[in-house]
């Protein structure tokens, strides 16, 4: 077989890639670069840009909404270890051949199908002060939990809904597939040795799916930093106050309701840098997986 070298296929590959490259350049690359430029200007999103140096960054660092957004995202991040623990635990249960495990896996996946807008609207009804949960609490003689009114409960509700409630079913499919790749003989040996469920989980399952767990953590980081907008927009609209602002939501408010696009671009720079780090982490994982 003759070796055609690296340039073997001439111009043809670039023709196959042209549609992708044009779309990416126009809708992703160009926006990212222009954001960076705009972050040094005063700009309403139309008309002329006025160069103002680092002023946007200075006002951002003095902006309470910015720091609240960072804190809120940190709260969301704190739920990631919990998500790992719950998802791996439930997957390990289902792996044991529990009766109806496929039905459980399918039903628990349903929240992933609905989309964040629908979920946001559903929970905006469900978590109201006079909604079903609070009604049930009142019947049981408990207090009214003001999920969407108390700042602390609001951000934690958002976190539980997204990181735990939605992601569980997605993680089950993913981890069950990963656990399926483990040699059954290892489990049989563990049982013969008299290892209980938790010992097997800790000594056999977890070490064997370490890679999948790493992926799961990175996936959750992506979701938390880059896929929260639609849920927050429909569930809390960032409120009460700034209580459920994230960087994404702040960019939206500054850019599209206050028309401070230059200023919102400074927020974008921060979000870009964080996402770039996550993206590099993900690429490293992907390349390891394809070796």
């Amino acid at each position: 077989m003759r070796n055609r070298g690296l340039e073997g296929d001439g111009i043809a590959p670039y023709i196959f890639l042209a549609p992708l490259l044009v779309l990416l350049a126009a809708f992703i690359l160009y926006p990212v670069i222009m954001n960076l430029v705009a972050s040094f200007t005063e700009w309403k999103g139309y008309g002329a840009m006025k160069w103002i140096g680092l002023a946007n960054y200075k006002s951002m660092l003095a902006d309470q909404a910015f720091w609240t957004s960072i804190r809120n995202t940190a709260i969301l991040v704190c739920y990631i270890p919990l998500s790992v623990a719950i998802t791996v635990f439930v997957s390990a249960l289902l792996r044991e051949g529990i009766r109806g495990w496929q039905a459980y896996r399918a039903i628990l996946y349903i929240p992933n199908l609905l989309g964040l807008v629908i979920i946001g609207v559903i929970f905006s009804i469900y978590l109201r002060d006079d909604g079903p949960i609070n009604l049930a609490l009142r019947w049981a003689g408990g207090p009214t939990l003001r999920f969407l009114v108390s700042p602390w409960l609001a951000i934690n509700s958002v976190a539980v809904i997204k990181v735990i409630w939605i992601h569980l079913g997605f993680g089950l499919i993913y981890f069950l597939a990963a656990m399926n790749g483990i040699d059954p003989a290892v489990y049989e040996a563990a049982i013969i040795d008299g290892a209980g469920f938790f010992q097997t989980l800790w000594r056999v399952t977890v070490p064997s799916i370490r890679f999948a767990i790493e992926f799961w953590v990175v996936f959750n980081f992506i979701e938390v930093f880059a896929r929260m907008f639609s849920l927050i927009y429909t569930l809390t609209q960032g409120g009460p106050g700034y209580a459920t602002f994230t960087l994404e939501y702040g960019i939206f408010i500054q850019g599209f309701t206050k028309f401070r696009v230059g200023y919102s671009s400074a927020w974008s720079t921060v979000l870009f840098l964080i996402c770039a780090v996550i993206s590099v982490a993900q690429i490293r994982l992907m390349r390891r997986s394809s070796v």
Partner: protein
Amino acid sequence: MRKASSIGAGWRVLVQVFLLMLVVASILPLYNVIAASFKSADEFVANPFFPPRVPIADNYAYAAINGRLLHYAVNSLILVPLGLLVYLAVCTSAGYAFGKMRFRLRLPLFLVVLFLLIFPQLLLATQVFKLTSLLHLTNTGAGVILAWAAYFSPFGTYIMTTYFTDMPYELVEAARMDGASHFRIFASVMAPLAGPMIATVAIIGFQSMWNELPFSLLILQNQGSRTLTLGIAMMRGEFGLRVPILSAAVVIAMTVPLVMFLIFQRRVTLGVTAGAIKG
């Protein structure tokens, strides 16, 4: 015969109880919204939790007609398939190039695609909006279709690339020997062979586009051009809209993704494991 298990028979009962509790937690909000959608406004106040005593369909009629959801659903059913077509064409051909062709910039360009996989829509939204208005695509289907195809394409390209990479190179080699061009190989050999994976990517793409909010929110500003998802999101903000009507709207919007899941359940499961990441 049951496979070896480290959970005793007594514990299995407890596990079932625990799993049923998870199911209830997953389903209860959905049950509640469905129940509410069949209640009159008065009944909802008196009975927000239990099934409706007197089920009514008025909320659906109101949401579909006065709330214009029927109109929005038609918009979605036109825009999403068109967006999907563009998306699949872009991702499949790019995946073939990355997976089966040899060229100097293969690795660098592929890394760029992977790098762009995760950026949040709000990071791009301002400039995407500016770009669409520059191209006179604001309030047009073409604007939102291009934005969707572009935004979701790194994911589809990644999946298709891994799929084509795993296909035996001999297929390409043999066809090349016969003098077939890459375009012929792609169109008549590789793309048909990739059919099942294209279907999986299509289903994930469908879900992503059907549920997409930020770009449609910015590009489709005419009320008449809203998608179903955008229509629901805007309804949520309407002052004084009654919960049962909003619930009916949500149920209408839920049906399409749920029916899709019931039909394509196996493929959806495959998609999750194929990507390990979600677009």
